[in-house]
């Protein structure tokens, strides 16, 4: 039977939803599931991880030098724990994509990137060419599987369990050659794009940074995260970290609403796992309508105010 270790992603206060998605992937693999939480002052996060079902145990490693998610410091801790496990999983977020290959190299294996489906304990499906092809990969059963889980492909595991939390001391000393300086965030109070249940996005048709405010207004009405097309970001209507697409964020909200986005391939790649895609565009020939579940040909400057009044 498999023994699966998941490396938790968190900001010291809350567990990132991506971790609960890794639990669902681990469940599909089958076996015991433990979660490792690295950081300093991580009591609340470890307790949250222990509630995820069906997690067997949580290993909390607390040390000052683990406070920030530097791969050079986290990877040796993961490797120290990994020997007892058949699988080590992390999310395909920027944290997981930075950390997991470093773990894999130290373990001496190739990593399976972006598991989107589990066919067996050592058989997985993953996308290549930005999702334009799906490959089946087989891992040697006598080697540790180190993998990232494509968060857009998995639902978050439920909460309600009560796994034991085990405290362990850090096994490695801080890497002196790498220093965390800080994090600049621009998102504010709105839900994070990766974990938002609803996402409202705007494209170049918004026309200016000022008019992009319409998107924020509707998003706040719906409690939605805000995204943008590459064109809108490049035009300076909104910051980089809001870009949805192959070169931005790949997301899977239950509801995705695209306003004034034509639907370039690179944007579609980022949204095709959304539950329901709504597209509003003046151009009835816009490619976004080929992938939308509900389409509306119209002027977003009329449609958005109408939607707001209909929503009361």
């Amino acid at each position: 039977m498999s023994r699966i270790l998941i490396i938790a992603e968190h900001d010291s206060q809350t567990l990132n939803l991506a971790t609960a998605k890794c639990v669902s992937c681990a469940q599909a693999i089958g076996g015991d599931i433990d979660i490792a939480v690295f950081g300093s002052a991580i009591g609340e996060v470890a307790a949250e991880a222990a509630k995820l079902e069906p997690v067997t145990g949580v290993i909390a490693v607390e040390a000052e030098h683990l406070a920030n998610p530097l791969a050079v410091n986290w990877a040796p801790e993961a490797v120290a724990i990994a020997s007892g496990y058949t699988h080590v999983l992390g999310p395909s977020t920027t944290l997981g994509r930075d950390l997991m290959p470093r773990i894999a190299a130290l373990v001496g294996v190739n990593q399976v990137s972006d598991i989107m489906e589990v066919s067996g304990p050592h058989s997985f499906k993953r996308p290549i060419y930005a999702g334009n092809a799906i490959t089946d990969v087989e891992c040697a059963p006598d080697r540790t599987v180190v993998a990232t889980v494509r968060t857009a492909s998995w639902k978050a595991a439920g909460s309600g369990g009560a796994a034991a939390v085990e405290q362990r001391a850090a096994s490695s000393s801080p890497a002196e050659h790498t220093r965390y300086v800080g994090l600049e965030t621009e998102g504010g109070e709105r839900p994070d794009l990766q974990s938002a249940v609803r996402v409202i996005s705007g494209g170049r048709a918004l026309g200016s940074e000022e008019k992009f405010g319409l998107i924020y207004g509707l998003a706040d009405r719906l409690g939605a995260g805000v995204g943008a097309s590459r064109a809108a970001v490049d035009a300076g209507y909104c910051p980089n970290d809001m870009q949805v697409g192959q070169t931005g964020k790949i997301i899977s909200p239950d509801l995705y609403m695209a306003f004034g986005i034509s639907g370039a391939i690179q944007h579609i790649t980022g949204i095709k796992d959304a539950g329901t895609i709504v597209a509003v565009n003046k151009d009835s020939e816009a490619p976004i309508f080929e992938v939308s579940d509900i389409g509306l040909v119209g002027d977003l400057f009329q449609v958005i105010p109408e939607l707001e009044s209909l929503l009361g």
Partner: protein
Amino acid sequence: MKILIGIKRVVDYNVRVRVLPDGSGVDLDGVKMSVNPFDEIALEEALRIRDAGKAEEVVVVSIGGDPVQQQLRTGLAMGADRAIQVKTDAELQPLGAAQAFLKIVEREEPGLVILGKQAIDDDNSQTGQMLAALWGRPQATFASKLVLNGTSARVTREVDSGLEIVDVDLPAVITVDLRLNEPRFVKLPDIMKAKRKPLDVVTLEELGVDAGSNVSVTHCAPPPQRAKGIMVDDAAQLVQELKNRGLL
């Protein structure tokens, strides 16, 4: 200081890839091949560092059969000083590629290794991090800004929650994201000049790297298509439809 750049030969990003009917892979027959776009950005950054007087030499490295020499020549035409081909016909996976890079790093002793954050063919995003691990050196992935300060580099990283800033001592491995810079266009005289620049060939066997892997690809298929949607006439119908589906 010397800067080492990794270059991968991949299907050009403008090509719409087609999966072969027998599921053995994607159709590469007659398809335009190019330098992985992220690697072009890595090279551009190295050239700017050199041209600002902060590095003396830029070396481009590619792993693969002789066709990769085309991409190495492109790198030389962009402005790299010399090229190294790690010759192999094997389909090397990231760990093997990182091991091969490590051997080159040990020979060349660069102050900086800059790679693309991922290749746009297999989308693995592993090689840079693996090289840093095997080398026991810092990694700064997904860089959108890079500032050298003598013996260290301040790197701005594009992460999900915003921009993370780290300081790394050199030598270090940096992988680059799209917004770091815009690579220059190659001019015809540069292509002519590139033909005279040195291109050394070393085989994977000579480096003592095993091409074997614990992960193998067994089948390739096109992605599933979304079902055709409906069109509504106005905002009221849209709201009603969303309510019917339990989304509002």
